[in-house]
């Protein structure tokens, strides 16, 4: 896809995982990116809204660069964004981030530990860096 995004914010789309801590990490990393470390550069979108065929949501993923954050290998965020016609410039896997922190207890589906927050922030900072590159018209490693 030719970059039509221009200065549009990059969409950070977390999975809808709810029963495990990986889903919460995906969600909190997204909030950290959109609310703190990449405010204005990034925006977010409900995956469930996209999956239910909301026209505005579908149009948005087709006209913005997208970064997906998936909690598990089922990769619901990446796959459903692609099915809706969006270009996933970067697909982040929470499991990959956790591999760099072996032995860490990130928390539960309900709440993150301090270590969990560190992992979420690490993901958010990487997403922010990629989002800035995308907004500048550069490519990022998928």
């Amino acid at each position, binding site marked *: 896809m030719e970059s039509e995004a221009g200065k549009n914010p990059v969409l950070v789309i977390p999975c*809808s995982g*709810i*029963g495990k801590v990986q889903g919460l990490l995906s*969600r909190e990393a997204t909030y950290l990116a959109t609310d703190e470390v990449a405010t204005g550069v990034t925006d977010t979108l*409900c995956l*469930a809204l996209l999956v*239910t065929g909301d026209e505005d949501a579908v149009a948005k993923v087709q006209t913005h660069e997208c970064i997906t954050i998936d909690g598990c290998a089922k990769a*619901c965020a990446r796959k459903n964004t692609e099915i809706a016609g969006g270009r996933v410039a970067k697909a982040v896997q929470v499991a990959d981030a956790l591999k760099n922190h072996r032995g860490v207890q990130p928390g539960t589906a309900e*709440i993150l530990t*301090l270590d969990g927050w560190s992992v979420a922030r690490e993901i958010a900072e990487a997403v922010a860096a990629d989002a800035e590159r995308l907004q500048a018209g550069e490519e990022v490693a998928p």
Partner: protein
Amino acid sequence: MSYAVLACNGVDKAEGALAREVGLLVAEATGGDVICPVLLNRAPDRYQKALGEDALIVVDGCGTRCASKLAAGVGAKPKQKVLLSTLVKASGEHLQASLRLAPGGMALAESIVADIVAALGAPGRQATPAAWEAPTEFFVVLFDKFEFRIPKQGYLFCENDTWARQMGNRARVGISDYLQQQLTDILYFNPPVLGARVEQFGELGEVESSKAIFEIIAPVSGTVVAVNETVVGESPELVNADPYGEGWLAEIEMSAWAEESELLLDGPAYRGTVGPKAADY
């Protein structure tokens, strides 16, 4: 009866965060399964048992009703459907512009969950985060015949010898080992009112010991969302036996952790204050 909970888990409005909390709390209260909404759409077979045998509770954050649509998409017939945006409006609460749940939001979530559980006729229980692990490493301050333990990490203290342990936007609060030993046997904990607003360094209930009545000082500000009913009820002595673990006193949904934590002491700093306090006592 067994239950399954399908919450929209939206991210682009505060109501989505509320839906997530309500969904998890309902699942906890009913012992139900949690359904991942988008995975339900991609792989409904995974939830065959939940959809076929369990009573389904659907929780939508906003009027687009994504969870309801996803349930309908797989032919599920919910036992109960909840639309949070209308309940928020009816409650008079104003969820903040942030996508995260606002202070006060957790108390609203627990109130909504209590109503849902009551309507189901399921036995409810107070929802409390499960990930509060007991500390394992301590500094030990020796004074005379006393040993005062201080967790090496994860706890922040105020000068009035209460501690706060942060998890997300909540803090669990209790008193230090030093204070419980000074007070001697704790006989009674008069807790703060659930839902009450407390200020940092303001009053957070009081404990009565065989020696004194002591006002608990809140190390952080926010809304009281839980109290340790075991300590309030049958076992106030837990405060003596395990002040950093089972003897916690209350949980506060915080409103200014980043700023207020700067005014608290970490384990090493608090350790430096305990010896002089004991000497002055």
